[in-house]
């Protein structure tokens, strides 16, 4: 904890040194105070709060849709070999399709509205989630499966009572990781075609050479990411206390 914070301090110190020391022109890199100041202006006068809200809404919306569909499909693929054989080749192919490359196509299909943003996040997250969940469920310890069968489990109760609970902590970890990727996709989508959101603010600031605003935007993204990550970790620990044992 102390070490983690001390690196943040070091980072800001270095940043201050190169900016206040005049080693880097202000036009390329704003100093920390200027960044905070313009951040305050953004929040109080330019309704940046609304941008943050829109971006979070998109991330959560796209991610929840992707997760809600990926969970059942991933579990089924992990549990039943024929289902895996049917979907796995396509999903493996689809996950290498870069979500950002779909943006022009999605703008054509869905315009620059919310559906387009959600679609980018969905494409970016869904296929990855499906594969990782399928692998996690498929890796359930063989002897636990056998033990359940000798205790009278049917195939369906095996899925419900062994495969899903056994894989749950690792699935939750996967969700946490992929949520981080969703943040990348949303910003890319907003950079290209949007009228609101953190990414939109960053593109606008670029036109004005306002590096202070850009940096503020990036730091806000980082902070929200950090907070959601911590919340996820905390939730996982609360939900799966048994998975923390013997680590």
């Amino acid at each position: 904890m102390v070490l983690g914070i001390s690196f943040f301090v070091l980072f800001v110190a270095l940043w201050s040194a190169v900016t206040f020391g005049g080693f880097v022109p202000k036009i390329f890199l704003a100093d920390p105070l200027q960044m905070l100041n313009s951040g305050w202006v953004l929040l109080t006068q330019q309704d940046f709060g609304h941008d943050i809200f829109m971006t979070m809404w998109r991330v959560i919306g796209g991610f929840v849709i992707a997760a809600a569909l990926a969970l059942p499909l991933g579990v089924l693929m992990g549990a039943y070999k024929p289902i895996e054989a049917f979907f796995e080749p396509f999903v493996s192919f689809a996950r290498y399709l870069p979500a950002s490359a779909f943006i022009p196509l999605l703008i054509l299909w869905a315009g620059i509205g919310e559906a387009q943003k959600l679609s980018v996040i969905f494409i970016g997250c869904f296929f990855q989630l499906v594969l990782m969940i399928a692998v996690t469920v498929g890796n359930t310890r063989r002897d636990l499966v056998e033990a359940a069968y000798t205790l009278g489990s049917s195939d369906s109760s095996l899925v419900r009572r062994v495969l899903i609970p056994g894989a749950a902590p690792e699935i939750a970890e996967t969700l946490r990781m992929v949520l981080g990727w969703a943040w990348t996709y949303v910003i890319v989508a907003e950079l290209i075609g949007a009228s609101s959101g953190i990414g939109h603010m960053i593109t606008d600031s670029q036109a004005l050479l306002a590096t202070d605003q850009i940096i503020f935007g990036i730091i806000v993204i980082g902070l929200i990411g950090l907070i959601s990550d911590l919340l996820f970790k905390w939730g996982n620990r609360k939900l799966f206390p048994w998975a923390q044992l013997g680590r």
Partner: protein
Amino acid sequence: MMVTSKGAMLPTILQIRGLERRFGEVLALQATDLDVAENDFITILGPSGCGKSTLLRIVAGLDTQTAGTATLDGKRIAGPGADRGMVFQSYTLFPWLTVLENVCFGLRERGMPHQQQLEVAHAFLAKVGLKGFAGHFPKQLSGGMQQRTALARALANEPRMLLMDEPFGALDHQTRELMQELLQGIWEAQQKTVLFVTHDIDEAVFMGTRVVVMSARPGRIKLDRVVPLAHPRHYAMKTTPEFTALKAELTEAVRTEVLEAQRVSEASA
């Protein structure tokens, strides 16, 4: 009909005829016949890789024979079921369930009302000496305690047969001896038909009403002896002449097979 060590005549419940298992080219189990009577405690000895676990797994329904039949109460075994409870060598408690929930697992599968599940589970946990550990997670228990829980979980389900695949194999010597006495006590108190695979000769004699020795690969039954020790058994019996005599005979038989297995593997290497 078979004569048990207690002299009672009890019907055969498990009948194995010409059971064979091939893994590709390799013949793991060769045309094996075995009759198990009600309340028999049969220990199966043999060198590693002799197919003793394969035999047990086929009875459990976790593996399928390539020839022959295994019937329990006249019904052909096809797939696993709650009538054949199993305790594995590896620790197979569900790590996300507490000790109590683990023991309830099979009961819930049967649709037993929750309150009744808890009563049964608590009773069996008391039997294996784990009264105070109902709320623990498996990872908080020692290996011996985990295997006691696994035993309680299997017994609570009231299986027709209990199948045990080197259940104490991963435990240290002292713990293993205590586990043997515990299981012996439970078996004496409530008779149960048991198939018990081990490579420990002392364990095979002390636990079994009958000891079966299997030969090196391809595995088949080479020796079948009734254990001439009375019940209830006490660990001090391990030094009696009857115990020592049977142990000597079995040691010789197993040793021959181990040497044979070694010769075969060296010849093929």
